[in-house]
């Protein structure tokens, strides 16, 4: 008798395999032309070609770099502003309404201004990624600080902890779970925005692969780019989840 785990694995594979088979059947029979949809074999071959020529690593590397830089900037900014707003009533009054107003603008609406101000270079792309990644982290951090159990803070106070010690030993660990959830959402946003940034103007990156494939009617190239985006996004999300399990495994909640 097969174990429940095995049965579940098989169950999960049914739909993807069926889709793959349908894709293969539709493209191999010539019912769909390759400029409309390339077949699985063409996509695999294109992936191999790109890997061999080194272009694959150049493009993946360029996108990863933009995501990493934009995310890092967003994280640091969100950490500073979120701590201020969450920790001080005065900072909240001074900063939060403006930040909420900026947040209400769909982030891609900034694109024309960014292009005018920063041109089409790396700075513009990283800025766009940073704008996308900033708000989820900021919002989660502010909510996290607000949501800290006042009773735990009181325990620290009852032991006579100084204000810095209270922040370091109670507020920071209590806020960490929310901050990490925000960071995970921010990273997902960063990948979303790197696509937009690279679609606009780029000579490298996975988004460039997308536009290049579109302009030359190479659907295999487009599909490779899509697959690589999916892989990168999934990998970075898994990494963030692993980090969460490691750092805040103590939380008593059902994992989201």
């Amino acid at each position, binding site marked *: 008798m097969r174990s429940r785990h095995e049965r579940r694995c098989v169950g999960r594979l049914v739909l993807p395999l069926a889709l793959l088979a349908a894709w293969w059947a539709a493209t191999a029979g010539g019912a769909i032309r390759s400029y409309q949809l390339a077949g699985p074999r063409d996509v695999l071959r294109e992936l191999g070609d790109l890997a061999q020529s080194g272009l694959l690593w150049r493009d993946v590397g360029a996108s990863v770099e933009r995501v990493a830089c934009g995310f890092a900037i967003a994280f640091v900014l969100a950490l500073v502003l979120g701590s201020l707003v969450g920790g001080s009533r005065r900072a909240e009054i001074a900063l939060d309404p403006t930040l909420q107003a900026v947040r209400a603008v769909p982030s891609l609406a900034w694109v024309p201004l960014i292009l005018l101000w920063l041109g089409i270079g790396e700075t513009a792309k990283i800025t766009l990624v940073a704008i996308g990644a900033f708000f989820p982290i900021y919002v989660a951090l502010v909510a996290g600080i607000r949501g800290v159990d006042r009773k735990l803070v009181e*325990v620290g106070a009852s*032991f006579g902890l100084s204000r810095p010690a209270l922040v370091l030993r*109670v507020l920071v660990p209590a806020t960490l779970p929310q901050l990490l959830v925000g960071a995970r959402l921010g990273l997902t946003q960063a990948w979303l925005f790197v696509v937009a940034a690279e679609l606009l103007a780029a000579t490298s990156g996975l988004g460039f692969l997308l536009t290049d494939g579109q302009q030359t009617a190479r659907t295999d190239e487009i599909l490779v780019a899509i697959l690589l985006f999916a892989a990168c996004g999934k990998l970075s999300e898994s990494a963030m989840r692993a980090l969460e399990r490691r750092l805040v495994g*103590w939380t*008593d909640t059902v994992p989201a």
Partner: protein
Amino acid sequence: MSLENALAARIRRLRKAFGTRLVFDAFELDVARGERVAILGASGCGKSTLLRCIAGLERPDDGTIVTAAEIGIVFQEPRLFPWLDVRQNVAFAARTDAERARVDRVLALVGMVHAAQLMPKALSGGMAQRAALARSLVRDPALLLLDEPFAALDALRRIELRAAVSEILDFTRASAILVTHDVDDALVLADRVLVLAGSPAEVVFSARTTDTAVRADVLAALGVVEHGTRSRRSALR
């Protein structure tokens, strides 16, 4: 102002108001060194506020509160830090090597050595409250403040933990102020029972628990009329 050696806490002319509601006005209380005082009273009578003022968690509007240098406090809920295991929670309050060396001793004292590595989410209510008790003992407090520490426990855990606290107080010779709803908790643990009532709150009843007839008097002071008491029978006649 310093405290005479014979006292663990001295409260003089305490005044505390929340908005327009005056909870204490010129309230006074002495707790002798080694003495255990239980404070009873209806909900909202100010007994928790009194404890929080003594612990320094509420600022009195006026008056002086002087206590022994080291105070431990146990709340109604365990309030363990969920990101620390039991041992780390207990060690949280330790500042010196001597206090860190006490961590294992107080864990043994509350019977939690076997659970020292567990995270708070894995603890039952009784175990969590034992860990909280251990944490409050780590600095070897001369005065232990207990804010309804058994209220969230079931009847059996309550009796167990009450006995544990009683033993620990015998052992450490710490003074204690116990705030509770439960007359039996008060009679088992305390040397002196006070009943607070009124607004602002005043001590309306005070007795030593060595007097065996004190239970009925405490209940009467709390406004409880038991069936079969003489006053009730005479009222029925």
